[in-house]
């Protein structure tokens, strides 16, 4: 009885979209190595749509599989759609995660979200930020 199901294992063994995007439109970093997991998500946005997504992940099998799954789920989605990717949805797409690994699905969704926020911030589209337009 493996700890991870086949879907998770498949993503762990063959993670999609690994890497960095040079001059990414948005970057989101979450976690830190002290607690065991760290993810950096990079997105490219075209026409309000995530045209490319890459990530680097330091962490366990679940963290890697979650990163991979989030990247697949995000690709091609509009920013609004992508923002609706919740940890629960990620876990569901992975057909379940061990209880003590739930936080990994949180991290994945959070990192993507942060990357989107980072993009929006740069675009000056967030309420608070006036620094937009750097791109």
């Amino acid at each position, binding site marked *: 009885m493996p700890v991870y199901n086949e879907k998770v294992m498949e993503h*762990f*063994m063959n*993670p999609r979209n*690994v*890497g*960095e995007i040079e001059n990414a439109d948005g970057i989101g*970093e979450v976690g*830190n*190595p*002290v*607690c*065991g*997991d*760290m*993810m*950096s998500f990079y997105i490219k946005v075209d026409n309000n749509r995530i045209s490319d997504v890459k990530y*680097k*992940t*330091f*962490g*366990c*099998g*679940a*963290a*890697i599989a979650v990163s991979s799954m989030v990247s697949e789920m995000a690709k091609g989605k509009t920013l609004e759609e992508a923002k609706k990717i919740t940890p629960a949805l990620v876990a569901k797409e992975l057909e379940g995660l061990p209880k*003590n690994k739930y*936080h990994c699905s949180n991290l994945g969704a959070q990192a993507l979200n942060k990357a989107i926020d980072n993009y929006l911030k740069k675009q000056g589209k967030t309420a608070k930020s006036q620094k937009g337009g750097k791109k």
Partner: protein
Amino acid sequence: MGEVYLDHVATTPVLPEVLEAMLPYFKDAYGNVQSLHSWGDKAREAVEEARGKVADLIGGVAEEIIFTASGTESNNFAVKGLAMAHQARGKHIVVSAIEHFSVLHSAKTLEKWGFELSEVPVDKYGLVDPKDVARSLRKDTILVSIMHANSEVGTIEPIKEIARVVKQSGAIFHTDAVASAGSIPINVKGLGVDALSLAANQFYGPKGVGALWLKKGVRIIPFLDGGVQEEGRRAGTENVPAIAGLGKAAELAKAEMGARAKRFSALRDKLIAGLPSRIEHVLVTGHPTKRLPGNASFCVEFIEGEAMLMLLNSQGIAVSSGSACTSRALKASHVLIAMGIPHEIAQGSLLFSFGLDNTGEDVDYVLETMPPIVDRLRQMSPLYAKFLKDKSRGGK
């Protein structure tokens, strides 16, 4: 793809001779030790024979051996039972910072019950300094529990020197020898301890059985209440086949200890020399010489243990790790942290432990398999990317 078990620290297989010694007590001589008929006689005989063999392994006397169901139970029994029995003299207990959780958490439970707890630090090799133990001792210190060897980094503690210090204070000294008993020579008299825990599944005996050696005359409060088994010190139907297995495993361990240690340490040394020479940024953890024969432990920088472990497993190699992700509690090994290893490096912990089936080829296979795995994970590691950019180590 190989099938290479390098996780003997997690548990060893049961030797054929050991299983052989157990089998009669399942179906034929299945009596209860407490029964006053011939079925009981046979069971009693098996248990008493095993008691003698376990005593022999550690230089004790048969009547000083109390059988338990695990190393964990031996440790709970020792720590709680000795503290409870001697609390009239004081309520202070001392443990090291790198004890197994079965000692550490037992001590924490005692804290909840009104005892005071001091933790003695270790150096970067995981060694306890007897002087630190001396400094921790107080007038009301009744119990000191410091492990004989640490399973995660293999370091063997100077128990004899520590015992000398503890004895001067009049406190009772327990040592958790679960990781060492059966692997390296132990003589309880020579060590000068009052109590010692061991477990069969660490030296080719079955799971589900351990022992507490308790020096004659040292009082203890039973941990398991109930019947009069084990001279009233540990209740519950005696696990006859498992005890017989422990006895046989002890006998074999004693007879073959030197030969086994020689083989294991050759494999260990080969891996300890080989891995850091093939992979950059690999740290050997634990003491360079005062270490268990079969234990080769490392931290691989910039990547995480569980991921390595899974990729190794996909290549047929079984190991363990002290990373946060491999622990249910999601905390990096308290042992590595106590040794001063930064959290982010501790996450890359990897522990290879050798056993009777392993050969030099297994080490070669590991040395060949590891570099691409490490590479692959480092390629996806944001920490490694940072390090390459600005030579920075650690998190944000």
